[in-house]
């Protein structure tokens, strides 16, 4: 079985995005940490588990982005993935899911993947679009928010269980090739073993350069303006030392008869 897992590298959620002068995008400082989107880590783990069950399975990784994302692809190789593909673009600008799904669809063209795994969404942009759009462009079925996945070996299909709103579930069989958007809780991602870390050191990440102009031509949704998020509640911020804040909180809750 040939599996492709799409991954995105995301910035540390505690780092501060700085709005640019034109107010059209935000950038992160030089010392920001980046790591693999949490949902994608679950997707990689799921791919590796399938490979352990079905001999002869290969697990490829693909990610679109600038130089920095190499470390995320490398981490997937350390977890045990076979090959890493870096669709290199020399830009930190907004890449819409429409574009990303087009680029990955093009990449998939001659690769004959049986199963494509993505995360249910990216933690920073939260679109949840890239996977289903990619599946539609490839003409294959897809399921999002998947909490269970098993391969029906002989039948050329998979059984998936989706998580619905309020925690309800729905299971179904999908004919392969298919795409699955993985939800957290499906598994516990492994830590790389020493032997895999060593192996990954000697595995080259295959880089495919994308033309920046290509991205402009197919552009669709664009960010026109970006601003600080508005507030739903007029919250007050407590000031002072830790102990002072604790005392104020205690008093405020007391006044509300909560204590």
């Amino acid at each position, binding site marked *: 079985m040939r599996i492709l897992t799409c991954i995105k590298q995301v910035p540390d959620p*505690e780092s501060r*995005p700085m709005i640019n002068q034109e107010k059209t995008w935000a950038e992160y400082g030089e010392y920001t940490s980046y790591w693999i989107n*949490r949902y994608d880590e679950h997707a990689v783990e799921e791919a590796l588990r399938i490979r352990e069950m079905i001999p002869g399975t290969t697990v490829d990784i693909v990610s679109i982005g600038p130089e920095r994302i190499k470390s995320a692809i490398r981490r997937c190789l350390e977890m045990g993935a076979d090959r890493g593909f870096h669709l290199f673009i020399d830009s930190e600008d907004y890449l819409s*899911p*429409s574009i990303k*799904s087009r680029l990955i669809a093009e990449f998939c063209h001659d690769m004959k993947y049986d199963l494509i795994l993505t995360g249910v969404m990216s933690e*920073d*942009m*939260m*679109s*949840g*679009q*890239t996977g*289903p*759009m990619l599946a*539609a462009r490839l003409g*294959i079925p897809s*399921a*999002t*928010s998947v909490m269970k996945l098993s391969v029906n070996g002989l039948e050329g*299909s998979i059984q998936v269980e*989706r*998580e619905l*709103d309020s*925690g*309800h*579930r*729905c*299971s*179904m*069989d999908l004919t392969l090739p*298919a795409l699955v958007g993985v939800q*957290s*809780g499906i598994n516990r991602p492994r830590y790389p073993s020493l032997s895999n870390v060593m192996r990954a050191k000697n595995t080259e990440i295959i880089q495919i350069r994308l033309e920046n102009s290509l991205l402009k031509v197919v552009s*669709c*949704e*664009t*960010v*026109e*303006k*970006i*601003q*600080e*998020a508005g507030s*739903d*509640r*007029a*919250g*007050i*911020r*407590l000031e002072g030392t*830790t*102990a002072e*804040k*604790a005392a104020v*909180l*205690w008093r*405020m809750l007391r006044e*509300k008869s*909560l204590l």
Partner: protein
Amino acid sequence: MSHSIMIMCEQSEGRILAVTDELIACATQIADHYDSRLTAVLPGLITEPCSISGADLLVINSPGLAQYTCEGWEKAALLATEQIKPKIIIIAHTSTGYDYAPRLAALLEGCCLTSVSGIEITGDSISYRRSGFHGKLDLLYGVGKAPLVITVLPGAFPAPDWQAEPGITRIIDADIKPKLTSHVQFSIPDQSNTELDHAEVIVAAGKGIGQAENLLMIRDMASCFKRSAIAGSRVACDNGWIEYNAQVGLTGKKVSPLLYVACGISGSAQHISGMKDSKTVVSINRDPEAAIFRYSDICIVEDLEKFIPAFLQEAKKHQS
């Protein structure tokens, strides 16, 4: 210039769900400026006569649509677009909506925006608002090629309290069968948690508690209050710190206690949707920009490992 807006009804067992009125409310905002025609589309196995207020209704009726499948809904929506030729398609951002909406946009060679929370109209152009950068910033999007498919966050466009006239209902009997999807089965896992359901105060732990040992602190804080319970974000549950039956949010429980204390929770839209009706919200987070502060009455920018012990100390002082 007049154009068509298509709204996909959210349904359960053939009955239109209330969230559909919110989609109509969103469509109406756009229609007021563009003199658009609103048509709601209801895919399903529809046995009873139906209509919807504020829009015409196009029923796509087929035995193969008796239950939701991505394939079935996609085919039904494509069939409807041939009839309606919409510039904009509005879908609810639910586990059904986000499953097929992006596919529909790709197949129509159009644009797609998910989790839309607002619309801004200036002159001749519309921008769509959604949140990004871990919920810290609001992004306003413009769109190019029609049609545009958007999924709208439930709760973002309140339905009007008055009922507009229902439009005309038209039924298309179709023969839609999913070909690549089979053995569809729904289930409802038992997630009951009476303690949480009855709690007046909920102290919730997020990924920010860092390790299982810190749960002790969360428990101690909860026991400062009468009728209290502990709960968690999805990540806290995924990490095995909190039971899944105490997960608060979109896929967990909806709670509305007198007091909700969020400890080390970032404030993702999915978590907020489960606790935003709490009477008072207190948040403890070391990141001054964390989104949770936008939904809080009392904001405490602190490391919880320092703050919670200080609060427990304070509580002790008052006990003795």
